[in-house]
């Protein structure tokens, strides 16, 4: 295993920058997820680690080596592709053993090793089949087996679970998590599924338009999203964003949404700095931090019932505020919503996040690391 480092890496296709000046370091044994919407440059970044794309500028290190211009075969890495890329003319044994074949291992040795890995992945009985003769989940495990069959410094994954159905995906996700704990592999995992990133990563790099917006452990990404973009992208349903107007009343800041007071809090140094940029702030509240309340409570939002979706243990209640903005709350299934005209929810001020007029999170005074 080895570390991976990007130093001011840029990749352009023509005049378009798919990746712009990215720098980050993946420590030895870390499982990193690159998370972001379609087209933000995740795959391009991953392919640069693999050597399948060459950076336009910048440097990529694996362990102590500068690999920026090294051929993929010389990088000692493994990669699982989204389409699995199993060789259709080889049976599973030969597919899994192919990396050993190019390393010059004897047939007996490599088939023995392929069988070992296949057994761990529960495809040991299928080694004589062709890829076209097995199911999607088995194909996924075959491609994983091919990546695990030889010693590797870094494991790269490009949305390896996106072609599986929901149930298999959860199962495979659990297995990958177990594998990571077991092997302590250095991994870079590309996904646009925030739940997958949350579940697997030791740290998540959230990307937007070719840049990394936040690089932090999952909990921090979830609880302290650096920008409204991250807040919106992580969490399902996403964080509720309420545009508010901030006014200073003595030592306190009052936040009003369309004239209605929604929050009143002491002014910190962070807030002072943020107000210098503009008074138009955004209040972010996660659905699970809203609970049923009554009109005139403090820290309250209210509106007309829009949807009431049952999810099993909990339900999602969505209401529309006066200005048309929607807010979703996640509450217990047994909590009854009694009215439809003026539904009111209160939130815990400690869990509310405030963003400045540029969409950047305003840190609280004396914030402790998570």
């Amino acid at each position, binding site marked *: 295993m080895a570390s991976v480092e990007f130093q001011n890496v840029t990749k352009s296709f023509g005049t378009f920058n798919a990746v712009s000046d990215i720098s980050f370091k993946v420590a030895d044994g870390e499982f990193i997820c690159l998370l972001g919407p379609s087209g933000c440059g995740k795959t391009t970044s991953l392919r640069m680690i693999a050597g399948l794309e060459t950076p336009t500028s910048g440097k990529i290190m694996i362990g102590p080596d500068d690999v920026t211009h090294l051929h993929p075969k010389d990088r000692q890495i493994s990669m699982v592709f989204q389409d699995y890329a199993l*060789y259709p003319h080889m049976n599973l044994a030969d597919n899994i053993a192919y990396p050993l074949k190019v390393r010059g291992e004897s047939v007996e040795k490599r088939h023995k090793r392929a069988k070992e890995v296949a057994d761990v992945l529960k495809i040991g009985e299928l080694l004589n089949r062709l890829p076209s003769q097995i199911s999607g989940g088995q194909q996924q495990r075959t491609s994983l087996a091919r990546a695990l069959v030889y010693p590797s410094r870094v494991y790269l994954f490009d949305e390896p679970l996106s072609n599986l159905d929901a149930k298999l995906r959860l199962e495979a996700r659990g297995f990958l998590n177990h594998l990571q704990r077991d092997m302590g592999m250095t991994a870079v995992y590309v996904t646009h599924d925030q739940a997958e990133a949350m579940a697997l990563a030791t740290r998540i790099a959230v990307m937007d338009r070719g840049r990394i917006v936040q690089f932090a452990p999952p909990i921090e990404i979830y609880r302290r999203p650096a920008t409204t973009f991250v807040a919106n992208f992580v969490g399902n349903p996403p964080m509720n964003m309420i545009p508010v107007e901030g006014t200073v009343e003595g030592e306190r800041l009052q936040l009003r949404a369309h004239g209605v007071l929604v929050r009143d809090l002491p002014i910190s140094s962070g807030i002072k700095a943020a107000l210098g940029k503009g008074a138009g702030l955004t209040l972010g509240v996660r659905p699970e931090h809203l609970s049923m309340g009554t009109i005139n409570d403090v820290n309250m939002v209210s509106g007309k019932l829009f949807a009431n979706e049952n999810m099993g243990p909990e339900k999602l209640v969505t209401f529309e505020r006066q200005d048309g903005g929607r807010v979703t709350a996640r509450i217990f299934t047994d909590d009854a919503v009694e009215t439809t005209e003026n539904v009111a929810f209160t939130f815990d001020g400690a869990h509310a996040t405030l963003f400045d007029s540029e969409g950047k999170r305003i840190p609280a005074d004396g914030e402790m690391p998570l």
Partner: protein
Amino acid sequence: MRLSFPQLLARIGFSALAAIIGILFALPLIWFIFAPFNARAELGIAIPDPWTLQNFVTVFGNGFAMRGLLNSLIQSVGGVILVAAAATLAAYALSRSSIPGKGMITYVLLLFSSVVSGTAAMVPIFLIVSSVGLMDTHIAVILVFAGGLLPTAMFILRDFIDGIPKTYEESAMVAGASPVQAFFDVALPVIRPGIVVVVVWAFVNIWGSFLIPFILLRSDDLMPSSVAIYSFYSEAGTPIVTLLAAYSLIYSLPVVALYLFVSWKFGFRFFGGIKA
């Protein structure tokens, strides 16, 4: 189901028409199968009476014609190997590399294949071949065929390779294979059905071609069957039907055999709207 009278009439009419068309197409084939075994074959269809192999005996005794079959084989196999190998490598490079203006190159290729290899090019080809000093050699015929067939072959194969995900070779290279290993271990087997189509198509083209060998060759012992078949015409230019029929049957066998072999071994597929 009961049909009304006009419906019934229409059905009968349609079936009769279909049958007539079918017979029209079948007639030459039937002649082709019967005539070689008939010692008195003419241009009309007749069931041989008695069946005889005498025509074949005479044909096998004709050294020029037999030598022609071998020459056809040499020229076809040589041309096919050259076309398949060159087209595969070129099409692979054209498909996988990031040459600027790839689309343009392909378009020009297609243009060349339809314009340049035709009869119009015969005079320049003749001049080039004779100034290179390859006149009257197998090599000349093979090279000219390869040159004529390559553009289309490359076009067919490029289209085919474009449809194959790059991730096959990429995964091989990440796993430690050199580009050459990745090509032979992974890409080539996946491309093979496309190559087979090109092989059959090129073989049939060269095997049946008359003009190019007729112009480029002088000596009798280099002539392919398509030219040698004229030895079964009398001095006056009328065909000796019996021998012609027998020789034609022999001449067509390799092509039939190739089709059978390929469809047994690979099965025929059609790619990218281009028929094999």
